[in-house]
C-alpha cells in the first residue's frame, strides 16, 4: 500500500521536473521518487537505486544537474555508489556507460558547478582507454584546471597520465608544479624526461617540483640534476628543493644497490642546510638506511644544535642495528648531553647488546637519582643476566621507592630471559629473586620460574623451600626440574637426594609416579612400582561377552576358581589367559592392545602376591569401566559403573594372610577405553611391601 501511494505522489513531481508523462518501469519509478517531495519515498529510492546499476545513470543526469541540493545530492551519491560498484575488472562496459553520461556534463555550455560535480564523479568511473579530451580541455581553463588535474591524478589511467604530461608544455609555472607533483605521485616513467628537463627551468619552484617528480626513482642518473636543483634554489625554494632531494635519497636507499650515494646525499643535506626539520629528516634517513659509519656524522651534526634536534639522536639510535653500530654508539655516548644519555638508556637496553651493557650498569649506579632510576629501569629490558647483580643491590639497599623499582625491573629481566629461551640465565635470575622475595607470594612466583627454567645452583635453596609448608607445592615442581637437570648432567647423587627430599614431603601418587622411575634410573634401592605399591604382573583373558545384566554375577570363567590353562569361547571366538607385565608409571594395564577393541564384554585379570605376615591392607583400584574384585576367592568389592580410569578410584579394605594371596578382577567394558590399575597400601596409605609371584 505504501509503495503504491508514493508512486502516485511522485508522478506530479516528475511531470513538474521533466515536463513529460511519468514512465512505468521500476527504475523510472525510483528515479521519480528520488526527485519527489515525499521524504519516505526519497529515502527508499536512495537506498534502492544503486541496485539498478549503470543503466540508471543516464536517467539520473537530469537530477544531477538540478539546482535543488535535496535532489542533486542524493542523485550524486547514487551515481557514486554505482560507479564504485562497477569499478572492478570485467565491468569496463558499465564504467564506459557511466563515463559517457558524466562527460556530457563537461560540455562548454554547462556552468562551473556542474562541471566540478562531474569531475568529482568521473575518477570513480573512467576505465583504461577512455577518451579524456573533455577533461583535458579543462586543463587550459584557469578556473577548472586544478579540479581537472586532481581528477586525472585520481584516475591514474594511461590516458590520464598522457593528459597530464601533455599539459606540461604550455602550463604556467605554478600549474606546472602541480602537474609535476601529480606525475610524480603517479610514478609516471614517461614523464621523467620532461621532469629532468624542467630541473633547468627558469623558475626555482618548477625546478623543485621537477625534482620531486624524479625523486621516486632514486635513480643515480638524476643525482647531478638533483644536486643542481638544490644548489640553485633561492631562499623561498631551498626547503622544497632539499625536501625533494631527501625524497630522492630515501628512494635510492630503499631500492638498494647504491647505498654509498644515498648516504652521501644525506650527509650533504646535513652539511648544507640550517633548517632543523630538514636536518632531522636527513638524520633519520641515515638512521633508517645507514650502518655504523653514519653515527659520527650524526653526532657531529647535532653537537651544537638546538635541543629539539639533539633529541633526534635518540630516535636515530633506535633505528640503527647490529654490533658494529652498537660499538659506535657506545663510543659516542660519553660525548652526548645528559638528557640524551638518559633517554638512550632505554634504547640501548632494548638492543640486548652486550657491548652496551656497561653503560646501563654505570647508569644504574650513578649518583644522580634520575639517572640511576633510568638505569635500573633499563636493566629490566636488557635481557642480560649481569644486570641482576646491580638490581639486587638496589633492591636490598636503595631507598624504598628505588627498591620497588629495582625489584620490578628484576622481575622483568627474569621474565624476559625466560621469554628469550635463555633458561640457564632465567633460572639464575629467578633464584636471585627468590632471595629478594618479600613474601610467600613472591617466593612462589620465583619458584615457578625456577621450575620453568631450572638452575642447578638453586639446589640448596630448594632443599630449604621443601620444608616450608607455604611453598612446598611450588618447591616440589622446581626441585623436580632441577633434579632432572642434575641427572642430565651426570650429577646422580644430588639428583637422587633431590628426589628423595621431594618424596619425603610429597608422596602423592602423581608425584611418586613421576619421580619413581627417575630414582630407579639413578640407582635408588626401591623401584617406582614399589614406592607406589603397584601390582604390575597379571594374567588376563577376554573379551568375554556381557549380554545381559545377569552376566555381572554369572561365573563366566569358572571364578572364583581359576584355571590359567583354560580357554573359553565367547561370541564364536576362543580366548585364553595370557601373561602381562605393565611398565606404566602408575601400573595401568591397557586391555585394548592386549585383547582387542570390543564392546559390552568383560575381561578377567588374575595375580598372586605374597606378604610376610597377616596384614590389613587396602586395594586401591582404578578401572575403565566397572569392576568386581575377589581376594583369596571371596568377593570383596563390586562397582557397576561406566567411567574413565583414574588412579585410586575405589578403595577396598582387605585382610591378607601371610604367604600367597590371590587377586581376581572382572573389568567391564561398555565402549571406548578399557583398562585398570591396582596398588596395595596399608590403611594409612603407605605402599604395602609385597612380592609379586610368578604364576606358572
Amino acid at each position, binding site marked *: 500500500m505504501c509503495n503504491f501511494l508514493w508512486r502516485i505522489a511522485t508522478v506530479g513531481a516528475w511531470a513538474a521536473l521533466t515536463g513529460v508523462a511519468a514512465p512505468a518501469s521500476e527504475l523510472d519509478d525510483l528515479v521519480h521518487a528520488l526527485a519527489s517531495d515525499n521524504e519516505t519515498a526519497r529515502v527508499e529510492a536512495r537506498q534502492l537505486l544503486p541496485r539498478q546499476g549503470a543503466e540508471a545513470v543516464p536517467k539520473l543526469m537530469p537530477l544531477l544537474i538540478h539546482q535543488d541540493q535535496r535532489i542533486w545530492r542524493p542523485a550524486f551519491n547514487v551515481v557514486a555508489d554505482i560507479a564504485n560498484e562497477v569499478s572492478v575488472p570485467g565491468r569496463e562496459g558499465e564504467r564506459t556507460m557511466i563515463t559517457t553520461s558524466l562527460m556530457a556534463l563537461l560540455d562548454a555550455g554547462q556552468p562551473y558547478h556542474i562541471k566540478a560535480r562531474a569531475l568529482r564523479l568521473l575518477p570513480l568511473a573512467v576505465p583504461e582507454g577512455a577518451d579524456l579530451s573533455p577533461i583535458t580541455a579543462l586543463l587550459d581553463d584557469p578556473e577548472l584546471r586544478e579540479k581537472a588535474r586532481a581528477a586525472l591524478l585520481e584516475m591514474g589511467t594511461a590516458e590520464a597520465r598522457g593528459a597530464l604530461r601533455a599539459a606540461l608544455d604550455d602550463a604556467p609555472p605554478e600549474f606546472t608544479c602541480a602537474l609535476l607533483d601529480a606525475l610524480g605521485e603517479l610514478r609516471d616513467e614517461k614523464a621523467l624526461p620532461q621532469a629532468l628537463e624542467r630541473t633547468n627551468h627558469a623558475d626555482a619552484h618548477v625546478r623543485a617540483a621537477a625534482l620531486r617528480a624524479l625523486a621516486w626513482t632514486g635513480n643515480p642518473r638524476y643525482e647531478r640534476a638533483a644536486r643542481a636543483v638544490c644548489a640553485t634554489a633561492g631562499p623561498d625554494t631551498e626547503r622544497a628543493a632539499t625536501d625533494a632531494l631527501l625524497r630522492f635519497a630515501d628512494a635510492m636507499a*630503499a631500492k638498494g644497490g647504491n647505498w654509498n650515494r644515498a648516504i652521501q646525499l644525506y650527509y650533504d643535506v646535513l652539511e648544507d642546510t640550517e633548517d632543523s626539520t630538514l636536518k632531522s629528516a636527513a638524520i633519520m634517513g641515515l638512521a633508517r638506511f645507514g650502518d655504523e659509519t653514519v653515527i659520527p656524522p650524526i653526532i657531529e651534526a647535532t653537537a651544537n644544535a638546538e635541543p629539539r634536534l639533539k633529541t633526534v639522536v635518540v630516535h636515530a639510535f633506535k633505528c640503527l642495528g647490529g*654490533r658494529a653500530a652498537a660499538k659506535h654508539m657506545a663510543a659516542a655516548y660519553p660525548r652526548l648531553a645528559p638528557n640524551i644519555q638518559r633517554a638512550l638508556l632505554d634504547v640501548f637496553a632494548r638492543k640486548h647488546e652486550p657491548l652496551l651493557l656497561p653503560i646501563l650498569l654505570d647508569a644504574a649506579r650513578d649518583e644522580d637519582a634520575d639517572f640511576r632510576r633510568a638505569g635500573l629501569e633499563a636493566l629490566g629490558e636488557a635481557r642480560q643476566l649481569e644486570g641482576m647483580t646491580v638490581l639486587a643491590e638496589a633492591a636490598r639497599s636503595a631507598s624504598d621507592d628505588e627498591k620497588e623499582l629495582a625489584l620490578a625491573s628484576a622481575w622483568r629481566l627474569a621474565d624476559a630471559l625466560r621469554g628469550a629461551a635463555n633458561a640457564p640465565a632465567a633460572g639464575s635470575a629467578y633464584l636471585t629473586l627468590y632471595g629478594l622475595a618479600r613474601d610467600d607470594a613472591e617466593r612462589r612466583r620465583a619458584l615457578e620460574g625456577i621450575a620453568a627454567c631450572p638452575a642447578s645452583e638453586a639446589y640448596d635453596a630448594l632443599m630449604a623451600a621443601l620444608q616450608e609448608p607455604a611453598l612446598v607445592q611450588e618447591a616440589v615442581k622446581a626441585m623436580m626440574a632441577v633434579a632432572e637437570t642434575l641427572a642430565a648432567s651426570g650429577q646422580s647423587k644430588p639428583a637422587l637426594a633431590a628426589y628423595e627430599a621431594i618424596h619425603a614431603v610429597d608422596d602423592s601418587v602423581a608425584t611418586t609416579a613421576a619421580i619413581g622411575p627417575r630414582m630407579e634410573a639413578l640407582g635408588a634401592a626401591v623401584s617406582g612400582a614399589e614406592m607406589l605399591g603397584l601390582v604390575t604382573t597379571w594374567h588376563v583373558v577376554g573379551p568375554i561377552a556381557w549380554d545381559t545384566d545377569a552376566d555381572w554375577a554369572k561365573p563366566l570363567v569358572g571364578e572364583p576358581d581359576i584355571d590359567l590353562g583354560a580357554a573359553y569361547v565367547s561370541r564364536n571366538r576362543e580366548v585364553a589367559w595370557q601373561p602381562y607385565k605393565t611398565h606404566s608409571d602408575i601400573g595401568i594395564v591397557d586391555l585394548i592392545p592386549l585383547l582387542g577393541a570390543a564392546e559390552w564384554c568383560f575381561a578377567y585379570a588374575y595375580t598372586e602376591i605374597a606378604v610376610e605376615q597377616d596384614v590389613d591392607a587396602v586395594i586401591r583400584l582404578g578401572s575403565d569401566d566397572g569392576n568386581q574384585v575377589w581376594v583369596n576367592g571371596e568377593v570383596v568389592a563390586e562397582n557397576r559403573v561406566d567411567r574413565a580410569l583414574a588412579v585410586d578410584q575405589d578403595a577396598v579394605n582387605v585382610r591378607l594372610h601371610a604367604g600367597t594371596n590371590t587377586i581376581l578382577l572382572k573389568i567391564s567394558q561398555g565402549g571406548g577405553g578399557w583398562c585398570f590399575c591396582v596398588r596395595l597400601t596399608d590403611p594409612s596409605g603407605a605402599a604395602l611391601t609385597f612380592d609379586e609371584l610368578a604364576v606358572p
Partner: protein
Amino acid sequence: MSAVVLLLTAGIAIEPAIHDALVFEKTRIGHATFEAAAAFDVDDDGDIDIVSGGYWYEGPEFKVQHKICDVQQVGDYYDDFSDYPMDVNGDGYLDIVTGGFWGLTLRWRENPKGKPVEWRVHEVAEVGNIERNCFYDIDGDGMVEVFPTTSPVHIFKLARGADGKGLGRFEQFTIAQKGGGGHGIGFGDVNGDGRPDIVFSGGWFEAPENPFAGAWDWHPEFSFGAASVPMLVFDVNEDGRNDVIVGQAHGYGFSWWEQTVSADGARGWVEHVIDADRSQYHELQLADIDNDGAPELIAGKRYRAHCGHDPGADDPLGLYYFEINRSAFVRVTLDYGPPVRASGAGIYLWVSDVDGNGWKDVVAPGKEGLYLFKNMGPPSE
C-alpha cells in the same frame, strides 16, 4: 717452521669518494630462496639466464621462470650449496654441477637443451657433507676441477674425449685422507713454486708436480676457525707472496692473513682485520667490478647461515665490494639493511657481465631472496 701473529687493526675499511662509485640497478628475481646461483645462457638463445637452485629465469628480463628439479629442503636450507655451469655431457649446453650439506652427494643436473622440461639429476659420488663445491683449475689445463669441500679431500675431474668435450662422468682422485672438510678452502700458490696449493682452515697442502698422483704435503701453519668457503689466496700487499683472505662463516670477523718469511726462511702469518663487527662472511669472490684491471673483493653476509643461531644473526644484512689498495680494503656497500629489503651474499654468488654492457654484475642468492645487481658503470647523465 711457522709462526702466527695476531694483529688487530681497526678501521681499515673506510668509504671511498662517492662520486666515483659505480651505479647499480637492483632487481629481485622470482621468489625462491635458494642460496646458490649462476648466470649463463641456458637455452642457447644468446641471452644470459639466471639459475638458482630449482629454477632458472629467462634473460634478459628474468620474469619467466622454469623449473629445473625438486631440491631437497631441510628447514630453511636447500641441498643446493653451489650451482656451477659446466657442459658435463658435451652436448653443447651448460649443465649444473651442484651438491649440498644434507644430501652428502656431488651431483650434476643435465640441461635438457634449453627445453622447458625438468632436468635429469645425475649422482657423481657420495662424498659426505658438502659445505660448498669449489671449482679451480688445479692441473693448469684450462678447465676447472670440482672440489666438494669434504674430508677426505677429493678432486673430481671431468672426463673428456679427444675433442675436449665432456663425457658425462667424472674421475675421482683422493689426495688426502685427513685435512679438509667443513669450513675453509682456497686455492693458490702459497710457497711460490708456481704450483697451486690448497689452503684449508688448519693449514695448507703443498701441491706436487702431478696433482692427481703425487703426494700433497700438509703444513699445519694456522687455524682460521669456521672459515669462509672459499678463502682467497691473493697477494694483498703486493710483496710477491700470496696471502689469505678469510671470512668467518658463522661468526663475526673478516681478515686477511699476511704471509711473512723471516730471515731464516720460516713462514709466518699475521692477521689484519678487515671488518671485526659484521658476521657470517660465508662467501667471498675476487672479480674486477670497476674495470680498472685489478680485482675487487665481493663479499657479504649469508642470511640465517645457521638458521638464526650464529652470532650476529639478527644484525643487518649487507652485500659489499672492497677495493683492495695494497693492504687497505675500501668498502663499497651495494646493499644494507633488514632482510625484508636488503640482500646478502648467500653461500654461492655469481659475478659476471649478465647484461653484456661490459661491466660485471652480481647475482646474489640467499634465504632473503635472489637479487641481481646490474652494474651500470660510472654515472652518466
